[in-house]
């Protein structure tokens, strides 16, 4: 071989170096932004977070006191939202991944069309319909994930409160009384659950996909039904993946303000919510209030930093739990 073939042309080497430098720079920028945000909030916020701050209600027109009602309200909201979103999302994902035809709509429909006059045509028809349902559901999930969160808020107001809530009131309450047809923990949780659903569904499907086909076959070959296989093999094998996805979805939902703006979050409440029909304070909403509605900006500033700090800390804790569960699963599956 002639020598030039193994040598890299100088301009090629320079191009390589520029590419590496640009890629490295973008990484540095991302990390720098994150560090600045966190350092700023930690520096100003940590000083504001005292025992009183965490255990007391706001006082003196939001210029003193703590954020206890907002912490409790956020926790209650997240718990209710999880109860609504996780079972529904996991069930949808199980249906999509385990029960709908793997071959997809067009192939299932083609197989049905060419099956004229053969036995089992009815089964092929149901298969094609099931594939159609799966396609519709999947695109609904994908579109749901792309809807801006403020639209969810408006939808929650229109659907849950104005339609469902008012209907319940008309049926159960004396005329003129409003119990369900107003913003509340319940409707805010339902609205937020809608926002979280796509994340839970996609993450659960991903987790189900990691369970090897071999294991399903082994179970079926031992005389297990499909549901027994799902319950005893597929779900235990994907549980940590499902939990990780659910936690990440929930932690995203926990910080969202727009969906709860019209559906139950309160500006200021002197009492804690005691019922799902009560309104509630919320950390994210409290940040918005403190930064836009304060009568004394300077006095509010430490409180604002403290609130953001607590909100971020809670979200990070949730994310951290998700990451830990995921890494533990990984190390187990790569024995």
């Amino acid at each position: 071989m002639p020598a030039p073939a193994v040598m890299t042309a100088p301009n090629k080497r320079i191009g390589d170096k520029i590419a590496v430098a640009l890629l490295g720079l973008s990484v540095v920028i991302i990390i720098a932004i994150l560090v600045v945000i966190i350092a700023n909030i930690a520096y100003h916020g940590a000083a504001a977070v005292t025992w009183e701050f965490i255990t007391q209600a706001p006082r003196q027109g939001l210029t003193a006191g703590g954020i206890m009602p907002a912490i409790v309200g956020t926790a209650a909201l997240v718990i209710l939202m999880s109860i609504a979103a996780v079972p529904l999302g996991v069930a949808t994902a199980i249906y999509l991944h385990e029960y709908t035809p793997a071959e997809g709509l067009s192939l299932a429909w083609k197989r049905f069309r060419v099956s004229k006059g053969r036995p089992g045509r009815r089964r092929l028809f149901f298969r094609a319909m099931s594939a159609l349902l799966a396609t519709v559901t999947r695109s609904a999930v994908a579109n749901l994930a792309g809807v801006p969160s403020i639209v969810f808020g408006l939808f929650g107001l229109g659907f849950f409160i104005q339609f469902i809530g008012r209907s319940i009131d008309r049926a159960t309450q004396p005329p003129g009384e409003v119990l369900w047809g107003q913003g509340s923990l319940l409707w805010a949780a339902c609205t937020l659950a809608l926002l979280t659903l796509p994340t839970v569904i996609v993450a659960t499907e991903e987790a189900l996909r990691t369970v090897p086909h071999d294991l399903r076959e082994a179970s079926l070959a031992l005389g297990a039904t499909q549901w027994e296989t799902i319950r005893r093999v597929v779900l235990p094998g994907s549980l940590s993946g499902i939990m990780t996805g659910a936690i990440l979805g929930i932690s995203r939902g926990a910080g969202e303000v727009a969906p709860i703006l019209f559906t139950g979050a309160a500006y200021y409440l002197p009492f804690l919510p005691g019922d799902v029909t009560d309104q509630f304070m919320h950390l994210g909403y409290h940040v918005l209030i403190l930064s836009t509605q304060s009568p004394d900006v300077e006095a509010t500033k430490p409180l604002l930093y403290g609130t953001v700090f607590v909100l971020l800390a809670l979200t990070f804790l949730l994310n951290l739990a998700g990451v830990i569960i995921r890494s533990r699963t990984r190390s187990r599956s790569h024995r």
Partner: protein
Amino acid sequence: MTTTMDYVSTSAPAVQLSPRASDVTPPPAKIEVRNFNFFYGETKVLHGIELDIPEKQVTALIGPSGCGKSTFLRSINRMNDIIAGARGEGLISIGSQDVYAPSVDVVALRRRVGMVFQKSNPFPKSIFENIAYGMRIGGIKDRRVLDETVERSLRRAALWDEVKDRLNASALALSGGQQQRLCIARALAVDPEVLLMDEPASALDPIATQKIEELVYELKTNYTIVIVTHNMQQAARVSDRTAFFMLGKLVEYDVTKTIFMNPTQKLTEDYITGRFG
């Protein structure tokens, strides 16, 4: 240059060849197959298969890759049902019950017909729970029955002595050969009549392979065994009868010794002697 003799006489077989059974009356058929065809979508992959698989013997299915032997094996316990667009036509009957009759409960069928796969596939559970899986599915909760059956199954799969002290350890910690014997034990625990094995030793080293082969030989006293294999020495060593498949057709089916020593079809001889495949 390989000759037919090499396949049956090399390296002191772990198990003896069965006596020349084509001379005697064949034992009663456990599985009868009549004009069985199989389709993946529009593609016909099995063409008019006819054979009788005798009870408590080992029947080997051999043939080049893609000849339909695995598809045929999976048709016997209807594992192909889970593949989209797959369908069988014709008759496969086990103990005179038509496997493809509409009234057949597939779940019950698979409890009668155990299966061992090419790649060992233990559940990520303990050794004990792997063996107990089929029984738990069947609703058996009595701890004594579970304990006894787990031990009996592991003994039958020649694994008991190696794992008896660590039944609660993860099955995934076992070696490849042990995992495959665990899968055999798991299949035996639900007390099937027929055992289907899809290249059970193809991913194992020679020692582990020999153990599986010895096991197959032991098991045929109680079970009817159908085994797919790519290894012709293995077919010669463990099986009583051999069916040679090619391009979705059954080319020849006879007593193993006849297939290897004195095949009637030119195709069979060419394949056995390694002229193609």
